[in-house]
């Protein structure tokens, strides 16, 4: 979708927290990216590489991005079956009625970061 601006938001969240904790060099950022968030892991990786290289006062030049992909899962409120939704997100493959609720795949979080006080 607009991964460069999303990565800008991500790095801002990390930067603010690191500043509060006196952390000066970020070495790693970990994200959870859900399958139905419209954010593409490859594009996030590219955006991270670009922004890291522009912000070496904050990032180590070997800083890495780790993405934990969260698969989409849904469950049917009628039969209780859990299924992996295709584009027909609410359609339960067992009951064949739109009775499914999304359980996972919508998470888009900064999970953690690692850094040090070294200059």
């Amino acid at each position, binding site marked *: *979708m*607009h991964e460069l*601006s*999303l990565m800008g*938001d*991500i790095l*801002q*969240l*990390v930067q603010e*927290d*690191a500043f509060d*904790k006196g*952390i000066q060099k970020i070495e790693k950022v970990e*994200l959870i990216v859900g399958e*139905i*968030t*419209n*954010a593409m892991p490859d594009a996030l990786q590219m955006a991270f590489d670009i922004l890291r290289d522009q912000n070496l006062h904050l990032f180590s030049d070997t800083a890495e991005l780790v993405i934990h992909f969260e698969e989409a899962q849904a469950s049917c409120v009628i039969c209780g079956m859990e299924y992996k939704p295709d*584009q*027909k*997100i*609410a*359609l339960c493959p067992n009951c064949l009625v*739109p*009775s499914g609720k*999304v359980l996972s795949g919508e998470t*888009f*979080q*900064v*999970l*953690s*970061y*690692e*850094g*040090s*006080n070294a200059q």
Partner: protein
Amino acid sequence: MKVTLRTDVLTNNNKAAEFNRELFHNTKTLVINLMSSPGAGKTTLLEETVRALSKNFRIAVIEGDLATERDADRIRALGAKAVQINTYGGCHLDARMVAATLGEFDLDEIDILFIENVGNLVCPSGYDLGQHHKVAVLSVPEGNDKIPKYPQMFMRTELVLLNKIDLLPYLDFSVEEARKDLSEINPESILISLSARTKEGLHEWFSWIEGAYERCVLQ
């Protein structure tokens, strides 16, 4: 040193959305975020909406586009207040952009604020602007495949306005199929068929707005 955050990536957007929501709540302003692909007819639909509802409601519009004041000018020509946001390449409106324009409105003097998002069926659906309702506009010439191809948009909206139904006799679009596709993605969403050009079906959209306004004021 490892620091666990577990913070939503859109945290800052969501804070701005809460700021907007509180303002809208305190001033009893109904806010509707209209989204669609480019050319679905959002602005024409808003022109007809402003024309029809200005008798009973004080309406204002925020227009989102990459460039130009064209859409805001079309709304201003009808006598309604309109503020244009230009995103200069940005593919969606975010809550901070909306918050930054709210100073230009006297929300106490506005009953309904429409936010016309940047024409795009992907990104706008992911951003909470603090609105009461997210509405998608789909138009007949775009074809039936748009609902299954862009499921997040239709999953995250509660109403689909199917515009340009005056073109149904000339194109292979099935309203029944669109209803079925929509129900399989979001069974709670409703579909209203209309044509901003011929005005067919517009009354149903206006009734929906009036109902939403009553619920907003009673809150």
